[in-house]
């Protein structure tokens, strides 16, 4: 059998995730897993999806986005609103979660589209700072938002208070401004998370290995050269950016529905950076690397108690060291020099 390298890579990635899922299920069944870690399983899946989708922007498209948590926030809040308001329409819980994730993904992709059209005209550091600004704007706007529901349907209010929603008796406040959402139905399960991860991998890997994916990577490697052979820059940049935003939205919905309360400030700059750390440590452009990095870096602090205080410090140091080692000419030359020396030794 003569498989292509990309096919092998894809098969390896899928197998990796499936094996990890089966092992985790085995551990749950045999009771060999701590309760805190068990509660972390669905968020880990959400983080994996976040990392893979950010890798699409940073690794494949080559534009640094520092506002990825903003899309997660949009997905989380819209997804929860959808799930709460559809509670009577769709009684089946997994289906309701899927609908919630779809709503989250479509809202996040809409936001990504409207942010992307103007913002992707910029490049490099400017794009990074503008995505950061967009993330902060989203956080700010969600903090000022009030949404409630009664028999007339959904009520929205902005910058006021929950009483301005004018709900009738028996109505329910869903998003309560700075207090966020409380009493979220816990719909997320590990299995649903696993399915979302598989779906994300399917989308991202097929996109990367398609004609569009090659165009996106060509833009990353040399925008001017790609433009000169007739690749439409805006179209492909938007394609990658919006896909990434949509997946982040779905992950946000999954993430929110694992906790009983969610506030907008949870999805701040720090969360964006955390996901960036996963992507960088997993390897820019390396999909299965992001999966492994997100999973390991979420599980590891749970395993090492007392290490938690130093976690972010260690992340920061590792981030710097990885960047210097992989980008400095002197460090880059080490493997070749070692190889030469080893070969020289074997020849003698």
């Amino acid at each position, binding site marked *: 059998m003569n498989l292509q390298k990309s096919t092998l890579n894809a098969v390896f990635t899928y197998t990796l995730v499936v094996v990890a899922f089966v092992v985790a299920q085995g551990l749950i069944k045999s009771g060999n897993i701590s309760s805190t870690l068990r509660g972390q399983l669905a968020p880990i899946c959400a983080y994996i999806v976040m990392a893979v989708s950010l890798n699409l922007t940073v690794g494949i498209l080559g534009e640094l986005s520092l506002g990825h948590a903003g899309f997660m926030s949009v997905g989380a809040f819209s997804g929860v609103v959808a799930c709460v308001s559809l509670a009577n329409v769709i009684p089946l819980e997994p289906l309701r979660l899927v609908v919630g994730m779809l709503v989250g993904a479509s809202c996040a992709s809409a936001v990504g589209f409207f942010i992307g059209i103007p913002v992707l005209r910029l490049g*490099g550091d400017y794009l990074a*700072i503008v995505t950061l600004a967009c993330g*902060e*704007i989203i956080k700010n706007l969600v903090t*000022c938002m009030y949404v409630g529901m009664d028999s007339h349907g959904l009520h929205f209010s902005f910058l006021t208070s929950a009483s301005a929603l004018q709900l009738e008796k028996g109505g329910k406040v869903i998003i309560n401004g700075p207090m966020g959402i409380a009493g979220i139905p816990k719909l997320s399960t590990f299995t649903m998370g696993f399915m979302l991860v598989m779906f994300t991998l399917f989308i991202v890997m097929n996109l990367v290995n398609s004609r569009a994916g090659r165009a996106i990577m060509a833009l990353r490697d040399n925008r001017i050269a790609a433009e000169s052979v007739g690749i439409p820059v805006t179209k492909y940049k938007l394609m990658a950016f919006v896909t990434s935003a949509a997946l982040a939205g779905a992950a946000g919905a999954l993430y929110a529905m694992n906790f009983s309360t969610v506030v907008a400030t949870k999805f701040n700059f720090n969360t964006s950076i955390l996901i960036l750390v996963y992507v*960088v440590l997993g390897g820019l452009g390396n999909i299965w690397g992001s999966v492994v990095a997100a999973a390991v870096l979420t599980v590891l602090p749970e395993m090492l108690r007392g290490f938690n205080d*130093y976690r972010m410090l260690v992340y920061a140091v590792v*981030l710097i060291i990885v*960047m210097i080692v992989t*980008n400095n000419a002197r460090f880059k030359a080490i493997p070749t020099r070692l190889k030469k020396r080893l070969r020289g030794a074997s020849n003698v």
Partner: protein
Amino acid sequence: MLAALLRFNFLGGLYMSFLSHLISGVSLGSIYAIIALGYTMVYGIAKMLNFAHGDVIMVGAYVCFFAVSRYDMPVIPSVLLAVAACTALGVFIERLAYKPLRSAPSLAVLITAIGMSYFLQNSAQLLWTSNPKVFSSVVGNGSVKFFDGRLSISYNVIVTVLACIIIMSVLTWFTGRTKMGKAMRACSEDKDAAQLMGINVNATISMTFAIGSALAAVAGVLLCSVYPTLMPTTGSMPGIKAFTAAVFGGIGSIPGALLGGTLLGVIEIFAKAYISTQLSDAIVFLVLIIVLLVKPAGLLGKQVQEKV
């Protein structure tokens, strides 16, 4: 007659509150401008966004805080100590993290800078805990009254604006007249050509970081004198906003930093006063996005054509 007088008083009140908002906006803007100078000089020369700059501000404020409150040092030596500490820190960061990446792609440098910012924040958290410290103003809390006490300008504001003006004038003289300043401008124009002319590019870049970080210390002390809560994350938001100001005014341009900083400070205070406190940050960032889209090089920046 009485009605007219009342009306005048009412309008006078509005006018006074406008004036006092304007003054506090200019004061905040001066702080942004001082921080923005650090960004703009480093960006001009090293072509990198020094994300850790905001956290150098925080370190400067902590050094000054401990010097004053724990070791009972007088104000001026403690500020000088903070300046010295930040200068050393800035040069150290540059040598350790940024110098090995001189020829690396900008994405790698940016991620390293973010890592550095995180490193500083988390070290500060471990060293000094995340409990907020109450910073007492270095110039005291008094104020000067105008118009029969209807308008008061605090010493903080006066010192901040004066410091900003002095720093701007000195820097303009420095980059325009001195040998080192000329070397800096040469490096920002073309590093290779500068090297061929016998300019020590590495030393010039280190010097830029030193100046930027020294200014960050001053900004930290001034910032915490006006907003007295000091935490490990104190520097990050003003840092980002000052970068916004630098971009707004045109990155790489010193008058641009002054203009952008002042405008941004005034916009922020007016947004807080007349629109919404909660949305002021969103409004500031919206301004950044609009400016970048309409005038990508900023108000006073030069548009550079991309060469193939």
